[in-house]
């Protein structure tokens, strides 16, 4: 489920933990409790997290493959086209000599594959996004160092500020705090 837009008030609720295991546990509990629109924040990737959040997206690998295929095609096509557009005899080689063409084909395959992978990753993550409500949360700057956060967003059907807050408290976090909206509703 996508995050709500930044003008919702409150944007959601945030619970802070001091250990990765707690966060993983908390995420599992929240999903058992039926929460779907939630996210976790950690200073480094946690192996268990994708499964815990129920993520099973393979978009990035597919993009990589697509990029690779496109790159290879571009590379080989480019060489075929240019040699056809302006045929020039060189070194006694045939105009279309596949052997030497392979190298550039390979290079462009790699280039495109990597390009697609990384660009795709950024796009799917909606990055760059310099401004986000969670940044306003107390201590959130430690999400990049040594603290672990769980956020339940307001667009979750089961989201109800007091109940959800109470639920989060039941997970024994260091702190539960509302995420303030950062933009005025229009």
């Amino acid at each position: 489920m996508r995050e709500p837009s930044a003008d919702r008030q409150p944007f959601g609720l945030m619970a802070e933990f001091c250990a990765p295991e707690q966060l993983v546990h908390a995420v599992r509990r929240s999903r058992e409790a039926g929460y779907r629109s939630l996210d976790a924040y950690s200073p480094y990737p946690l192996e268990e997290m994708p499964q815990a959040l129920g993520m099973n997206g393979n978009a990035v690998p597919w993009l990589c493959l697509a990029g690779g295929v496109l790159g290879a095609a571009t590379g080989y096509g480019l060489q075929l086209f240019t040699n056809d557009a302006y045929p020039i005899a060189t070194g006694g080689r045939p105009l279309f000599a596949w052997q030497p063409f392979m190298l550039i084909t390979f290079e462009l395959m790699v280039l495109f594959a990597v390009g697609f992978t990384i660009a795709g990753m950024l796009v799917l993550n909606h990055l760059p996004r310099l401004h986000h409500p969670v940044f306003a949360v107390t201590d959130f700057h430690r999400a990049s160092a040594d603290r672990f956060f769980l956020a339940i967003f307001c667009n979750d059907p089961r989201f109800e500020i007091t109940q959800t807050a109470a639920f989060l408290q039941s997970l024994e976090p260091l702190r539960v705090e509302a995420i303030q909206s950062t933009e005025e509703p229009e």
Partner: protein
Amino acid sequence: MSETASDTRITAEITRIPLHYPHMRNWWLLFGFSLVLLGCFFVAAGALFLNGVGMWGNNIPVNWGLAISNYVWFLGIGHAGTLISALLLITNARWRNSLNRFAEAMTLFAVVCAGLYPILHLGRPWLFYWMAPYPNTMTLYPQFKSPLSWDFFAVLTYLTVSLLFWYIGIVPDLASVRDRAKTRRAQVLYGLAALGWRGSARHWARWQQAYRLTAAIAVPLVVSVHSEISLLFAAGPIPGWTSTVFPPYFVMGAAFSGFAVVLMIAVTLRHALSLRDIVTERHLDLLARFLLTTGLMTAYGYVYEVFDALYGGQKQDLATLHDRFTGLYAYSYWGAVIFNFVPLQLLWFRGIRARPAVLFLIATSVVVGMWYERYMLLMTALYRDYLVSSWGEYHASLWEWLLFAGMIGVFLAPFLLFVRFLPVISAFEVKEALRETGDLSHA
């Protein structure tokens, strides 16, 4: 101590470097020095553009001189970063995390130096872009059957991929620096660079996929790139070049010289930025083992080359071989053999591998040795090719040496800026590794 406590410490230790750098005086001294070298670069390049390649010692038959041998040398060095980072990532060797960041940075700047050389050595450098296929009124395109076209694409791809790989690797740490930054300016700058990374689990998941895929692709790329560089020589019909051993030979040599430089940098940074408990002795030990291994592989290349010539039995090849041992440039052959492989043997001893200073010296000798090798491969083949009548000698002119010094500056200056302003070690990966292994020296 609790994990999070060590997380805190690691974060602090690494992010403190860009935010308030420890030894500013030494840094300025070094940076000033590298700026002087950079100045040499602009002087040498300027004079070159003004007057032409004639400023150098090149001639017929030695069309290529220092420029091209340095090109191969720099590019070789530039192979370790991505190789270490990617290869060790997909083989799940956690200890890489303390090294990969600066290794990759080193790669980037080395490749930039390498890329500049072929352009400078052109007769008409201002037309270098004719190497690229772009639509033009003459509908004239590059000649894709030429090893130079291959190199052009290889180096370009390698540079781009290395840059992207390095960048997405550093983004989370930039975020971490952003969050620690006190001044507004720092917050804004690092914030922009961090792309608003907030450590979301969903982001991490896709990030990891992308990072691992890139790594997996980068490994064959590294191999392909230096193989293609070797074809720049192997594809020509010149005795001493036309050998099938060249691609693997070059790749091994590249990794060898690259690891040497990584080792040098590791020892230096470890000492300069007092990162002893992040770049531990075990890291140095592992690097040393890698150096030894790749060194022995390169040595095999030497042996095979001799065997190749003897087995082929072509009069010309034998002449070139003999010339390498005894000819005008024999010093470069023996220089390569001695600097590359003699001190290297010390690495068999654990005691030695535990002594950073000694490791640094050995690595330096390897870097020098590999420079000799590149020079030797170029010279011994070119200055005496087929026809006795066209033999000629090559002596690099002062301008070429000046340019070489300048290139060191081109490498050093940005690298020092990187050390000064960016997290030189991948903090989050160290932490991640720490969580899994629970021991820093394994991290």
